[in-house]
Protein backbone atom coordinates (compact mmCIF):
# COMPACT_ATOMS: atom_id res chain seq x y z
CA UNK A 1 0.00 0.00 0.00
CA UNK A 2 1.43 3.34 -1.00
CA UNK A 3 0.93 5.48 2.04
CA UNK A 4 4.24 7.33 2.27
CA UNK A 5 2.75 10.46 0.77
CA UNK A 6 0.72 10.93 3.93
CA UNK A 7 3.81 11.09 6.15
CA UNK A 8 5.09 13.93 3.99
CA UNK A 9 2.37 16.19 5.35
CA UNK A 10 3.91 16.19 8.80
CA UNK A 11 5.21 19.60 9.70
CA UNK A 12 7.24 21.06 12.55
CA UNK A 13 5.34 23.40 14.86
CA UNK A 14 6.17 27.08 14.52
CA UNK A 15 9.20 27.84 16.74
CA UNK A 16 7.37 30.81 18.31
CA UNK A 17 4.49 28.57 19.25
CA UNK A 18 6.76 25.86 20.68
CA UNK A 19 8.68 28.41 22.70
CA UNK A 20 5.65 30.24 24.09
CA UNK A 21 3.91 27.01 25.11
CA UNK A 22 7.02 25.79 26.90
CA UNK A 23 7.22 29.12 28.68
CA UNK A 24 3.60 28.80 29.84
CA UNK A 25 4.22 25.30 31.13
CA UNK A 26 7.30 26.50 32.98
CA UNK A 27 5.24 29.26 34.59
CA UNK A 28 2.73 26.67 35.78
CA UNK A 29 5.61 24.74 37.28
CA UNK A 30 6.95 27.79 39.08
CA UNK A 31 3.53 28.59 40.50
CA UNK A 32 3.29 25.30 42.31
CA UNK A 33 4.58 21.87 41.46
CA UNK A 34 2.29 18.92 41.98
CA UNK A 35 3.77 16.69 44.66
CA UNK A 36 4.47 13.12 43.70
CA UNK A 37 2.35 10.70 45.60
CA UNK A 38 4.01 8.36 47.99
CA UNK A 39 4.36 4.78 46.92
CA UNK A 40 1.24 2.90 47.85
CA UNK A 41 1.97 0.18 50.35
CA UNK A 42 -1.31 -1.69 50.61
CA UNK A 43 -0.36 -3.99 47.76
CA UNK A 44 2.58 -5.23 49.78
CA UNK A 45 0.26 -6.63 52.42
CA UNK A 46 -1.66 -9.84 51.85
CA UNK A 47 -4.20 -8.28 49.58
CA UNK A 48 -6.24 -9.54 46.72
CA UNK A 49 -9.26 -7.93 45.18
CA UNK A 50 -12.58 -9.57 45.87
CA UNK A 51 -14.23 -6.54 44.35
CA UNK A 52 -12.82 -7.56 41.05
CA UNK A 53 -13.83 -11.12 41.64
CA UNK A 54 -17.33 -9.83 42.19
CA UNK A 55 -17.11 -7.70 39.09
CA UNK A 56 -15.87 -10.58 37.03
CA UNK A 57 -18.63 -12.67 38.50
CA UNK A 58 -21.06 -10.12 37.17
CA UNK A 59 -19.40 -10.22 33.78
CA UNK A 60 -19.51 -13.95 33.60
CA UNK A 61 -23.12 -14.09 34.57
CA UNK A 62 -24.00 -11.97 31.58
CA UNK A 63 -22.60 -14.50 29.15
CA UNK A 64 -25.43 -16.89 28.34
CA UNK A 65 -23.12 -19.72 27.43
CA UNK A 66 -21.49 -19.79 30.83
CA UNK A 67 -24.08 -18.31 33.11
CA UNK A 68 -25.24 -21.39 34.95
CA UNK A 69 -21.85 -23.00 35.32
CA UNK A 70 -20.14 -19.73 36.13
CA UNK A 71 -22.48 -19.10 39.01
CA UNK A 72 -21.21 -22.14 40.81
CA UNK A 73 -17.65 -21.77 39.66
CA UNK A 74 -17.54 -18.22 40.95
CA UNK A 75 -19.03 -19.20 44.26
CA UNK A 76 -16.01 -21.37 44.53
CA UNK A 77 -13.72 -18.42 43.86
CA UNK A 78 -15.49 -16.29 46.35
CA UNK A 79 -14.77 -18.83 48.96
CA UNK A 80 -11.11 -19.13 48.06
CA UNK A 81 -10.36 -15.44 47.62
CA UNK A 82 -6.80 -16.19 46.67
CA UNK A 83 -6.63 -15.53 42.97
CA UNK A 84 -8.68 -15.38 39.87
CA UNK A 85 -7.92 -17.69 36.98
CA UNK A 86 -8.49 -18.10 33.25
CA UNK A 87 -11.42 -20.32 32.51
CA UNK A 88 -11.01 -23.11 30.04
CA UNK A 89 -14.33 -23.74 28.24
CA UNK A 90 -13.78 -27.51 28.24
CA UNK A 91 -13.13 -27.54 31.95
CA UNK A 92 -16.10 -25.31 32.55
CA UNK A 93 -18.24 -27.84 30.74
CA UNK A 94 -16.75 -30.60 32.88
CA UNK A 95 -17.56 -28.67 36.05
CA UNK A 96 -21.06 -28.10 34.79
CA UNK A 97 -21.51 -31.82 34.26
CA UNK A 98 -20.32 -32.43 37.81
CA UNK A 99 -22.74 -29.82 39.08
CA UNK A 100 -25.59 -31.47 37.26
CA UNK A 101 -24.54 -34.64 39.04
CA UNK A 102 -25.43 -32.83 42.28
CA UNK A 103 -21.87 -32.20 43.41
CA UNK A 104 -21.78 -29.30 45.83
CA UNK A 105 -18.63 -27.38 44.88
CA UNK A 106 -18.99 -25.00 47.75
CA UNK A 107 -19.02 -27.81 50.27
CA UNK A 108 -16.13 -29.47 48.49
CA UNK A 109 -13.75 -26.67 49.19
CA UNK A 110 -14.46 -25.37 52.63
CA UNK A 111 -16.40 -25.65 55.82
CA UNK A 112 -17.42 -23.26 58.54
CA UNK A 113 -18.08 -20.24 56.37
CA UNK A 114 -18.80 -17.48 58.83
CA UNK A 115 -20.19 -14.10 57.84
CA UNK A 116 -18.48 -11.63 60.15
CA UNK A 117 -20.23 -8.63 58.72
CA UNK A 118 -23.14 -8.44 56.33
CA UNK A 119 -22.57 -5.86 53.58
CA UNK A 120 -26.13 -4.60 53.92
CA UNK A 121 -28.39 -3.25 51.23
CA UNK A 122 -27.16 -0.57 48.82
CA UNK A 123 -28.14 3.00 49.67
CA UNK A 124 -29.12 5.36 46.85
CA UNK A 125 -27.68 8.85 47.29
CA UNK A 126 -28.26 12.05 45.34
CA UNK A 127 -24.87 13.62 45.82
CA UNK A 128 -21.46 12.03 45.20
CA UNK A 129 -20.17 13.92 48.26
CA UNK A 130 -22.58 11.92 50.40
CA UNK A 131 -21.24 8.74 48.82
CA UNK A 132 -17.73 9.90 49.67
CA UNK A 133 -18.67 10.41 53.31
CA UNK A 134 -20.30 7.01 53.60
CA UNK A 135 -17.64 5.07 51.71
CA UNK A 136 -14.66 7.06 52.98
CA UNK A 137 -13.11 7.36 49.55
CA UNK A 138 -12.88 10.18 47.01
CA UNK A 139 -15.64 9.44 44.52
CA UNK A 140 -14.73 10.19 40.91
CA UNK A 141 -17.21 10.50 38.08
CA UNK A 142 -16.57 10.77 34.34
CA UNK A 143 -16.65 14.16 32.65
CA UNK A 144 -17.18 12.50 29.30
CA UNK A 145 -20.19 10.31 28.58
CA UNK A 146 -21.14 8.64 25.30
CA UNK A 147 -23.82 10.41 23.31
CA UNK A 148 -27.14 10.71 25.09
CA UNK A 149 -26.12 8.76 28.16
CA UNK A 150 -26.76 10.48 31.46
CA UNK A 151 -26.08 9.73 35.08
CA UNK A 152 -28.94 7.75 36.59
CA UNK A 153 -28.04 7.10 40.20
CA UNK A 154 -25.29 6.52 42.72
CA UNK A 155 -25.37 3.69 45.20
CA UNK A 156 -23.19 2.95 48.17
CA UNK A 157 -22.90 -0.46 49.68
CA UNK A 158 -21.22 -0.94 53.01
CA UNK A 159 -18.34 -3.36 53.30
CA UNK A 160 -18.57 -6.94 54.49
CA UNK A 161 -16.37 -9.61 55.96
CA UNK A 162 -16.33 -13.40 55.91
CA UNK A 163 -14.13 -16.09 57.40
CA UNK A 164 -13.79 -19.69 56.30
CA UNK A 165 -11.75 -22.76 56.99
CA UNK A 166 -10.10 -24.77 54.23
CA UNK A 167 -10.79 -28.48 53.99
CA UNK A 168 -8.11 -30.26 52.02
CA UNK A 169 -9.84 -33.62 52.04
CA UNK A 170 -12.69 -32.10 50.09
CA UNK A 171 -10.31 -30.28 47.80
CA UNK A 172 -8.62 -33.59 47.04
CA UNK A 173 -12.03 -35.06 46.28
CA UNK A 174 -12.63 -32.37 43.67
CA UNK A 175 -9.20 -32.93 42.11
CA UNK A 176 -9.95 -36.64 41.88
CA UNK A 177 -13.34 -36.00 40.30
CA UNK A 178 -11.70 -33.82 37.67
CA UNK A 179 -9.12 -36.48 36.94
CA UNK A 180 -6.21 -34.32 38.12
CA UNK A 181 -4.12 -37.13 39.54
CA UNK A 182 -0.71 -35.46 39.70
CA UNK A 183 -1.69 -32.79 42.24
CA UNK A 184 -2.11 -33.39 45.95
CA UNK A 185 -4.06 -30.99 48.16
CA UNK A 186 -1.46 -29.72 50.67
CA UNK A 187 -2.26 -31.17 54.06
CA UNK A 188 -0.82 -28.19 55.91
CA UNK A 189 -3.70 -26.12 54.57
CA UNK A 190 -6.28 -28.22 56.36
CA UNK A 191 -8.05 -26.10 58.95
CA UNK A 192 -6.47 -22.87 57.68
CA UNK A 193 -8.64 -19.88 58.51
CA UNK A 194 -8.99 -17.15 55.91
CA UNK A 195 -10.62 -13.79 56.57
CA UNK A 196 -11.82 -11.55 53.77
CA UNK A 197 -12.66 -7.89 54.36
CA UNK A 198 -14.47 -6.06 51.59
CA UNK A 199 -14.54 -2.24 51.86
CA UNK A 200 -17.58 -0.16 50.92
CA UNK A 201 -18.28 0.04 47.19
CA UNK A 202 -19.63 3.08 45.35
CA UNK A 203 -21.51 2.27 42.16
CA UNK A 204 -22.53 4.97 39.70
CA UNK A 205 -25.05 4.02 37.05
CA UNK A 206 -25.32 5.81 33.70
CA UNK A 207 -28.05 5.00 31.25
CA UNK A 208 -29.85 5.75 28.02
CA UNK A 209 -32.77 3.48 27.21
CA UNK A 210 -31.59 -0.07 27.59
CA UNK A 211 -27.93 0.87 27.49
CA UNK A 212 -26.44 0.92 30.97
CA UNK A 213 -22.95 1.67 32.17
CA UNK A 214 -21.78 0.96 35.69
CA UNK A 215 -18.74 2.48 37.36
CA UNK A 216 -17.69 0.78 40.59
CA UNK A 217 -14.97 2.11 42.87
CA UNK A 218 -13.63 0.85 46.14
CA UNK A 219 -10.50 0.61 48.19
CA UNK A 220 -8.72 -2.66 47.67
CA UNK A 221 -10.20 -5.48 49.72
CA UNK A 222 -7.93 -7.33 52.11
CA UNK A 223 -7.48 -11.02 52.71
CA UNK A 224 -5.80 -12.17 55.89
CA UNK A 225 -4.01 -15.46 55.78
CA UNK A 226 -2.08 -17.21 58.55
CA UNK A 227 1.69 -17.14 58.20
CA UNK A 228 3.17 -20.12 56.46
CA UNK A 229 0.54 -20.41 53.76
CA UNK A 230 2.44 -20.80 50.53
CA UNK A 231 0.27 -19.03 47.98
CA UNK A 232 1.91 -20.32 44.78
CA UNK A 233 1.04 -23.87 45.79
CA UNK A 234 -2.60 -22.93 46.19
CA UNK A 235 -2.61 -20.93 42.98
CA UNK A 236 -1.16 -23.87 41.09
CA UNK A 237 -4.06 -26.04 42.24
CA UNK A 238 -6.59 -23.37 41.31
CA UNK A 239 -5.04 -23.06 37.87
CA UNK A 240 -5.16 -26.81 37.37
CA UNK A 241 -8.83 -26.86 38.37
CA UNK A 242 -9.37 -24.09 35.83
CA UNK A 243 -7.92 -26.29 33.13
CA UNK A 244 -4.29 -25.21 32.72
CA UNK A 245 -1.72 -27.91 32.04
CA UNK A 246 0.76 -28.88 34.74
CA UNK A 247 3.60 -26.98 33.06
CA UNK A 248 1.53 -23.86 32.49
CA UNK A 249 0.15 -23.83 36.00
CA UNK A 250 3.59 -24.27 37.58
CA UNK A 251 5.24 -21.65 35.42
CA UNK A 252 2.46 -19.25 36.15
CA UNK A 253 2.02 -19.91 39.84
CA UNK A 254 5.66 -19.66 40.82
CA UNK A 255 6.59 -16.59 38.81
CA UNK A 256 4.22 -14.12 40.43
CA UNK A 257 4.05 -12.58 43.88
CA UNK A 258 0.50 -13.49 44.74
CA UNK A 259 0.47 -11.20 47.73
CA UNK A 260 0.13 -8.34 45.35
CA UNK A 261 -1.32 -9.84 42.21
CA UNK A 262 -4.82 -10.51 41.09
CA UNK A 263 -5.41 -12.74 38.12
CA UNK A 264 -8.74 -12.00 36.51
CA UNK A 265 -10.79 -14.92 35.21
CA UNK A 266 -11.95 -14.55 31.65
CA UNK A 267 -13.95 -17.27 29.90
CA UNK A 268 -11.90 -17.88 26.78
CA UNK A 269 -14.84 -18.63 24.53
CA UNK A 270 -16.93 -15.67 25.61
CA UNK A 271 -14.55 -12.75 25.86
CA UNK A 272 -11.17 -11.42 24.83
CA UNK A 273 -8.94 -9.00 26.65
CA UNK A 274 -5.96 -6.73 26.34
CA UNK A 275 -4.06 -4.06 28.20
CA UNK A 276 -5.05 -0.43 27.89
CA UNK A 277 -3.83 2.82 29.36
CA UNK A 278 -6.00 4.72 31.82
CA UNK A 279 -4.49 7.92 33.18
CA UNK A 280 -1.07 6.43 32.68
CA UNK A 281 -1.97 3.24 34.49
CA UNK A 282 -2.20 -0.09 32.76
CA UNK A 283 -5.73 -1.40 32.87
CA UNK A 284 -7.36 -4.55 31.61
CA UNK A 285 -10.10 -4.30 29.01
CA UNK A 286 -12.29 -7.39 28.71
CA UNK A 287 -14.42 -7.33 25.61
CA UNK A 288 -17.40 -9.57 25.10
CA UNK A 289 -17.23 -11.70 21.97
CA UNK A 290 -20.93 -11.11 21.50
CA UNK A 291 -22.52 -8.19 19.75
CA UNK A 292 -22.52 -4.73 21.22
CA UNK A 293 -25.19 -4.08 23.81
CA UNK A 294 -26.04 -7.69 24.51
CA UNK A 295 -23.15 -8.15 26.86
CA UNK A 296 -20.97 -5.55 28.44
CA UNK A 297 -17.31 -4.92 28.01
CA UNK A 298 -15.45 -4.29 31.23
CA UNK A 299 -12.51 -2.06 31.99
CA UNK A 300 -10.61 -2.72 35.21
CA UNK A 301 -7.83 -0.59 36.59
CA UNK A 302 -6.28 0.60 39.80
CA UNK A 303 -5.36 4.17 40.57
CA UNK A 304 -4.36 5.86 43.78
CA UNK A 305 -5.20 2.85 45.89
CA UNK A 306 -8.70 2.62 44.48
CA UNK A 307 -9.84 -0.25 42.30
CA UNK A 308 -12.14 0.80 39.46
CA UNK A 309 -14.42 -1.31 37.31
CA UNK A 310 -16.29 0.27 34.42
CA UNK A 311 -18.68 -1.92 32.48
CA UNK A 312 -21.37 -1.36 29.89
CA UNK A 313 -22.78 -2.34 26.54
CA UNK A 314 -20.94 0.39 24.68
CA UNK A 315 -17.92 0.38 22.42
CA UNK A 316 -14.53 -0.16 23.98
CA UNK A 317 -13.13 3.20 23.00
CA UNK A 318 -16.13 4.89 24.61
CA UNK A 319 -15.43 3.02 27.83
CA UNK A 320 -11.82 4.16 27.62
CA UNK A 321 -12.84 7.76 27.02
CA UNK A 322 -15.11 7.63 30.04
CA UNK A 323 -12.37 6.15 32.20
CA UNK A 324 -9.83 8.70 31.09
CA UNK A 325 -12.24 11.55 31.78
CA UNK A 326 -12.54 10.69 35.48
Amino acid at each position, binding site marked *: *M*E*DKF*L*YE*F*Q*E*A*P*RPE*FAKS*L*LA*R*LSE*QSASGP*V*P*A*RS*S*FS*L*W*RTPVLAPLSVLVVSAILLTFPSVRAAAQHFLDLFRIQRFAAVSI*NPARLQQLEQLREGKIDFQALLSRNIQVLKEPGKPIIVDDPRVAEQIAGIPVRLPN*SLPNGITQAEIRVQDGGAVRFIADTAKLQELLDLLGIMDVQAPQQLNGTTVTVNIPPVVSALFAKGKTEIMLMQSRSPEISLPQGVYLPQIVEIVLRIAG*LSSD*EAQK*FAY*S*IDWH*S*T*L*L*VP*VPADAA*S*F*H*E*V*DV*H*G*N*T*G*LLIESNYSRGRNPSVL*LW*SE*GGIVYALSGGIR*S*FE*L*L*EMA*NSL
Partner: protein
Amino acid sequence: MSTETTRSSALNWLLPFTSAAKEVDWEALYTEQLPRVYNFFRFRVGEGAVAEDLTSVTFEKAWRFRHRYRRDLSAFSTWLFTIARNVATDYFRRYRKDLSLEEIADQTDGQTPESSAIRRSDFRQLSNFLSRLSNRERELLALKYGSGLTNRAIAKITGLSESNVGTIMHRTILDLRAQWQVKE
Protein backbone atom coordinates in the same frame (compact mmCIF):
# COMPACT_ATOMS: atom_id res chain seq x y z
CA MET B 1 -5.89 -18.19 26.18
CA SER B 2 -2.29 -17.13 26.44
CA THR B 3 -1.12 -17.51 29.98
CA GLU B 4 1.70 -15.08 29.38
CA THR B 5 -0.75 -12.44 28.28
CA THR B 6 -3.01 -13.10 31.22
CA ARG B 7 -0.17 -12.90 33.64
CA SER B 8 1.12 -9.73 32.12
CA SER B 9 -2.30 -8.12 32.31
CA ALA B 10 -2.82 -9.03 35.91
CA LEU B 11 0.64 -7.94 36.92
CA ASN B 12 0.51 -4.66 35.16
CA TRP B 13 -2.87 -3.92 36.58
CA LEU B 14 -1.58 -4.10 40.12
CA LEU B 15 2.01 -3.06 39.86
CA PRO B 16 1.79 0.69 39.22
CA PHE B 17 1.48 1.55 42.86
CA THR B 18 4.35 -0.60 43.95
CA SER B 19 6.92 1.13 41.82
CA ALA B 20 8.51 4.28 43.07
CA ALA B 21 7.91 7.52 41.22
CA LYS B 22 10.49 8.24 38.57
CA GLU B 23 11.92 11.55 37.64
CA VAL B 24 10.81 12.58 34.19
CA ASP B 25 12.74 14.96 31.98
CA TRP B 26 9.72 16.94 30.89
CA GLU B 27 11.57 19.35 28.67
CA ALA B 28 13.12 16.52 26.66
CA LEU B 29 9.77 14.82 26.38
CA TYR B 30 8.17 18.08 25.35
CA THR B 31 10.68 18.54 22.55
CA GLU B 32 10.13 15.00 21.36
CA GLN B 33 6.37 14.87 21.65
CA LEU B 34 5.30 18.38 20.62
CA PRO B 35 5.59 17.76 16.85
CA ARG B 36 3.73 14.47 17.17
CA VAL B 37 0.83 15.97 19.10
CA TYR B 38 0.73 19.02 16.87
CA ASN B 39 0.56 16.88 13.73
CA PHE B 40 -2.07 14.67 15.31
CA PHE B 41 -4.28 17.74 15.59
CA ARG B 42 -3.37 18.98 12.11
CA PHE B 43 -4.66 15.71 10.73
CA ARG B 44 -7.70 15.81 13.01
CA VAL B 45 -8.83 19.43 12.59
CA GLY B 46 -6.64 20.92 9.88
CA GLU B 47 -3.65 23.14 10.34
CA GLY B 48 -3.60 26.59 11.81
CA ALA B 49 -4.55 28.19 15.09
CA VAL B 50 -7.00 25.48 16.12
CA ALA B 51 -4.35 22.76 15.89
CA GLU B 52 -1.99 24.89 17.96
CA ASP B 53 -4.68 25.64 20.54
CA LEU B 54 -5.57 22.00 20.97
CA THR B 55 -1.90 21.09 21.22
CA SER B 56 -1.53 23.68 23.98
CA VAL B 57 -4.55 22.35 25.84
CA THR B 58 -3.15 18.82 25.65
CA PHE B 59 0.23 19.75 27.06
CA GLU B 60 -1.28 21.97 29.74
CA LYS B 61 -3.49 19.09 30.88
CA ALA B 62 -0.60 16.69 30.78
CA TRP B 63 1.48 19.09 32.82
CA ARG B 64 -1.28 19.64 35.36
CA PHE B 65 -1.74 15.92 35.86
CA ARG B 66 1.86 14.94 35.47
CA HIS B 67 1.87 13.38 38.93
CA ARG B 68 -0.28 10.65 37.41
CA TYR B 69 2.48 9.77 35.04
CA ARG B 70 5.29 8.14 36.90
CA ARG B 71 5.94 4.79 35.35
CA ASP B 72 8.01 3.57 32.48
CA LEU B 73 8.90 6.16 29.89
CA SER B 74 7.71 4.03 27.00
CA ALA B 75 4.14 4.52 28.18
CA PHE B 76 4.43 8.27 28.06
CA SER B 77 3.18 8.80 24.54
CA THR B 78 0.26 6.47 25.20
CA TRP B 79 -0.74 8.63 28.12
CA LEU B 80 -0.19 11.88 26.24
CA PHE B 81 -2.20 10.75 23.23
CA THR B 82 -5.00 9.57 25.47
CA ILE B 83 -5.23 13.16 26.67
CA ALA B 84 -4.96 14.44 23.10
CA ARG B 85 -7.81 12.20 21.98
CA ASN B 86 -10.00 13.47 24.80
CA VAL B 87 -9.15 17.05 23.89
CA ALA B 88 -10.13 16.38 20.29
CA THR B 89 -13.35 14.68 21.39
CA ASP B 90 -14.24 17.66 23.58
CA TYR B 91 -13.48 20.02 20.73
CA PHE B 92 -15.72 18.22 18.26
CA ARG B 93 -18.46 17.88 20.83
CA ARG B 94 -18.45 21.54 21.78
CA TYR B 95 -17.61 23.44 18.65
CA ARG B 96 -17.96 21.34 15.56
CA LYS B 97 -21.48 19.97 15.73
CA ASP B 98 -23.00 22.43 13.34
CA LEU B 99 -20.21 22.77 10.81
CA SER B 100 -20.58 21.31 7.35
CA LEU B 101 -17.83 19.25 5.77
CA GLU B 102 -16.91 22.16 3.55
CA GLU B 103 -16.62 24.46 6.52
CA ILE B 104 -14.39 21.98 8.32
CA ALA B 105 -12.14 21.72 5.30
CA ASP B 106 -12.11 25.51 4.95
CA GLN B 107 -10.65 25.87 8.43
CA THR B 108 -7.31 24.65 7.12
CA ASP B 109 -6.15 28.19 6.78
CA GLY B 110 -2.46 27.59 6.23
CA GLN B 111 -1.01 29.93 8.79
CA THR B 112 2.47 28.51 8.56
CA PRO B 113 4.42 31.11 6.67
CA GLU B 114 7.30 28.79 5.87
CA SER B 115 5.09 26.41 3.95
CA SER B 116 4.96 26.68 0.24
CA ALA B 117 1.70 27.57 -1.49
CA ILE B 118 1.62 24.18 -3.21
CA ARG B 119 2.15 22.33 0.01
CA ARG B 120 -0.60 24.31 1.71
CA SER B 121 -2.88 23.64 -1.18
CA ASP B 122 -2.13 19.90 -1.03
CA PHE B 123 -2.73 19.75 2.68
CA ARG B 124 -5.95 21.67 2.27
CA GLN B 125 -7.00 19.07 -0.30
CA LEU B 126 -5.98 16.26 2.03
CA SER B 127 -7.93 17.83 4.87
CA ASN B 128 -10.91 18.01 2.61
CA PHE B 129 -10.64 14.27 1.97
CA LEU B 130 -10.04 13.58 5.66
CA SER B 131 -13.12 15.56 6.64
CA ARG B 132 -15.24 13.08 4.69
CA LEU B 133 -13.98 10.15 6.74
CA SER B 134 -15.68 8.88 9.86
CA ASN B 135 -14.42 10.19 13.16
CA ARG B 136 -12.68 6.93 13.92
CA GLU B 137 -11.02 6.63 10.51
CA ARG B 138 -9.71 10.16 10.69
CA GLU B 139 -8.45 9.67 14.21
CA LEU B 140 -6.58 6.51 13.25
CA LEU B 141 -4.97 8.27 10.30
CA ALA B 142 -4.03 11.21 12.50
CA LEU B 143 -2.37 8.91 15.01
CA LYS B 144 -0.45 7.05 12.34
CA TYR B 145 0.48 9.64 9.75
CA GLY B 146 0.28 12.77 11.86
CA SER B 147 1.92 11.42 15.00
CA GLY B 148 3.92 8.59 13.49
CA LEU B 149 2.64 5.97 15.91
CA THR B 150 2.74 2.28 15.13
CA ASN B 151 -0.42 0.22 14.74
CA ARG B 152 0.40 -1.45 18.04
CA ALA B 153 0.64 1.87 19.85
CA ILE B 154 -2.56 3.04 18.21
CA ALA B 155 -4.31 -0.13 19.28
CA LYS B 156 -3.20 0.50 22.83
CA ILE B 157 -4.44 4.06 22.80
CA THR B 158 -7.77 3.42 21.13
CA GLY B 159 -8.65 0.11 22.69
CA LEU B 160 -9.03 -1.50 19.27
CA SER B 161 -7.15 -4.67 18.42
CA GLU B 162 -3.99 -4.26 16.40
CA SER B 163 -5.45 -6.24 13.52
CA ASN B 164 -8.57 -4.12 13.60
CA VAL B 165 -6.46 -0.97 13.41
CA GLY B 166 -4.57 -2.41 10.44
CA THR B 167 -7.75 -3.41 8.65
CA ILE B 168 -9.46 -0.05 9.08
CA MET B 169 -6.28 1.77 8.12
CA HIS B 170 -5.76 -0.34 5.00
CA ARG B 171 -9.31 0.22 3.79
CA THR B 172 -9.18 3.93 4.52
CA ILE B 173 -5.85 4.43 2.79
CA LEU B 174 -7.08 2.65 -0.32
CA ASP B 175 -10.05 5.04 -0.49
CA LEU B 176 -7.89 8.04 0.23
CA ARG B 177 -5.27 7.00 -2.29
CA ALA B 178 -7.93 6.61 -4.96
CA GLN B 179 -9.28 10.09 -4.23
CA TRP B 180 -5.77 11.51 -4.27
CA GLN B 181 -5.02 9.96 -7.65
CA VAL B 182 -8.22 11.36 -9.10
CA LYS B 183 -7.22 14.76 -7.81
CA GLU B 184 -3.78 14.41 -9.46
